[in-house]
């Protein structure tokens, strides 16, 4: 459904904007999470087919002719994986932020540029 693509893309753009402008590391991670949410919306929307039902064959009608009645299940399966992986990555990223914070007592990303050039 095209409107959802639009929503997803806008969310991604907001996330990118946040990643580019927010100095707080937690906010950068949040921004990445927004990008991911937008992306996942787009992915699921790619599998949507108008007027069809969820890929759960809980009626005889569906069992008999699934291919013409359900939406594409593959993007859903992929997004399922992507969500879990995304959360795992975010958790790890936050751990890095916590540890970094303990080193310099600040969350500002601009303070962490000892490595450069």
């Amino acid at each position, binding site marked *: *459904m095209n*409107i*959802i693509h*639009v*929503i997803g893309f*806008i*969310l991604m753009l*907001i*996330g990118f*904007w*946040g990643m580019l*402008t*927010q*100095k*707080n590391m*937690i*906010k950068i*991670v*949040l*921004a990445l*999470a*927004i990008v991911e*949410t937008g992306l*996942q*919306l787009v992915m*699921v*929307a790619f*599998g*949507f087919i108008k007027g*069809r*039902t*969820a*890929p*759960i064959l809980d009626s005889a009608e569906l069992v008999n002719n699934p291919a013409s009645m*359900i*939406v594409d299940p593959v993007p*859903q399966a992929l*997004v*399922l994986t992507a*969500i*879990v992986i*995304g*959360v795992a990555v*975010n*958790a790890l990223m*936050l*751990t890095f*932020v*916590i540890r970094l*914070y303990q080193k310099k*007592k*600040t*969350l*500002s990303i601009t303070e962490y540029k000892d490595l450069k050039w």
Partner: protein
Amino acid sequence: MELQHGIIILMGLAMILSAILAMVVKDLISSVVAVGVVSLFASIIYLLLQAPDVAMTEAAIGAGLSTLIFLYALHKTKDAEEEND
């Protein structure tokens, strides 16, 4: 069908607003919660997209646990002075 469209557009607007809010507000807790709200709306949209599995996952993991982990992280870095962007 039209009604559904309207709902989606409304929710989309809400998501976009809370996403922007999450990026704009200074208070980190609000911004974490705002991102959680984005996920929550997303999971409703997934339902409308005939993806109940994804909806459940997004609600439980994306909106729930993820927000919680963020809050814990905030807790551990709480004496951070508020940054002005």
